């Protein structure tokens, strides 16, 4: 595996992304919306009307809000990855690409990076906005800066990249079986379900603290590894040229 070769593919993917305005808008809108929306909610509703001693109850809400950056990491790369692979399939540009001295793994890694990097960049940007605004809004009530903290660090630097990888690999597998971008998107949106289940469970049984998030990340890593193997099989040139619909 030559990383430089994968990087050529990734750079091309990033250039292509610049031309897809719709995807680009979604990529920016979601984290910025979360980054601005939740601090506004905290500022306008929770702290003024939530009761005395916000330091005792507000962190639960803040942790739940922060998990939206992991949910975003599961959702946004599916659009990019699906478009990247189904788009090449539709425009028939995969065959010339496969004819270059690039291995299947290098192409797949390049495409994965092309979906992963903008997603993480957007999520981290939104999270920086979110943390800054939350700190500004809550420092008076808490008496200390809530962010940065370990929980957020695990979410942004461990859970979000792993979840994004799971989403990308699943998108590759889905893309190998469908012929249009919309179908790929619809199937890929099913990936949000486990994230929502975790989100709801967090309210009842599994508080989203740093330790639990690390445990969840371990599961994401295992799923990512399993899907990586399946996606590598789905992305073999023999398969692409003879069996992909």
């Amino acid at each position, binding site marked *: 595996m030559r990383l430089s070769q994968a990087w050529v593919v990734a750079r091309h993917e990033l250039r292509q992304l610049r031309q897809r305005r719709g995807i680009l808008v979604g990529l920016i809108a979601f984290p910025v919306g979360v980054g601005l929306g939740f601090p506004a909610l905290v500022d306008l509703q929770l702290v003024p009307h939530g009761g005395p001693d916000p330091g005792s109850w507000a962190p639960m809400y803040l942790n739940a809000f922060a998990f939206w950056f992991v949910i975003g990491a599961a959702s946004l790369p599916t659009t990019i990855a699906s478009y990247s692979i189904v788009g090449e399939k539709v425009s028939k540009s995969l065959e010339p690409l496969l004819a*270059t*001295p690039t291995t299947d793994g290098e192409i797949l890694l390049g495409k994965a990076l092309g979906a992963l990097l903008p997603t993480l960049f957007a999520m981290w940007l939104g999270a920086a906005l979110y943390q800054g605004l939350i700190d500004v809004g809550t420092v008076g009530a808490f008496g200390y800066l809530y962010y940065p903290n370990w929980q957020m660090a695990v979410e942004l630097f461990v859970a979000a990249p792993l979840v994004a990888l799971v989403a990308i690999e699943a998108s590759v597998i889905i893309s190998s079986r469908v012929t249009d971008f919309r179908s790929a998107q619809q199937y890929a949106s099913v990936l949000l379900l486990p994230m929502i289940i975790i989100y709801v469970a967090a309210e009842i049984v599994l508080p989203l603290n740093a330790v639990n998030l690390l445990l969840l990340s371990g599961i994401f890593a295992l799923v990512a590894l399993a899907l990586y193997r399946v996606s590598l099989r789905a992305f073999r040139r023999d398969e692409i040229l003879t069996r992909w619909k």
Partner: protein
Amino acid sequence: MIHAENLTKRFGDLTAVDHVSLDVREGEVFGFLGPNGAGKTTTVRMLSGLISKSAGSAVVAGCEVGKEADALRLREQIGILPENVGLYEGSSAYENLEYFGQLHRMDPTALRSNIERLLRTMDLWEKKDVRVETFSKGMKQKLAIARTLVHDPVLLFLDEPTANLDPEAAKMVRETILALRRERRTIFLNTHNLDEAQRVCDRVGILRTRLLTVGSPRELEAGLHGRRTVVRLERATETLARAVQDRIGPRPVEVSGDRLLIDVEDPDRENPEIAAAIVAAGGRILELTQPSASLEEVYLKLVHEGAAGS
């Protein structure tokens, strides 16, 4: 440049390419003719290492097809123009070539110079920064050919390069292939356009799952009915037929209206003898011709025989 032996591809129960053996020499344009579904594209994909072979062996540009260690080296040395050009429509002509040059790990200076040379050759330099989606079909095809050449491959696989093009664009592409031929590039040309094959190919192979025949267009044309000399006379008679047989030996000579139809082995040696024999026997020759079947006749005959045989 290409040596294939018993190359076979099976998809489940279906045999797409059946024991194809062929050789393509360096610097020649080899036309691969066959109807849709004959296995032309599958053969190209196997020879270029894009898909695995079910059986047989092939060596392409010194690389063993199917050998993992040779796979990347093989793809470095060949250029493939697929039937669907598959350009990045939202990118410019320059960006399309640049990406593929980078994937071939070209030195940036050499890549820039190659891109400029190719775009100028293809008459696309003025449009280098224009998005490909605005190009005509012919321009896209030329750009796709430039893409196959960007890394200076020693062997080109062109899969139906003029299919779905209007006559003007097809002519443009054919001229490009002829220019490549003048540069002594080895070209493996998949086509079902017989006129194109006749005009640009040194040799052709006719495929219908199995390779039915290989030869130069002239050889194939001559080989369909054997070689035959037709002499149109003022009056064709049995006496003249016997005179010809006496001169060139016991060959079938047929009298048909005002013509003598003579099977010959070596027309360059025998035709002057035939003419001399007829004149000596008192015949008056109006016309002496060596008719041959067109490549189209050869193709249709072989393909239909192939279909009947399979």
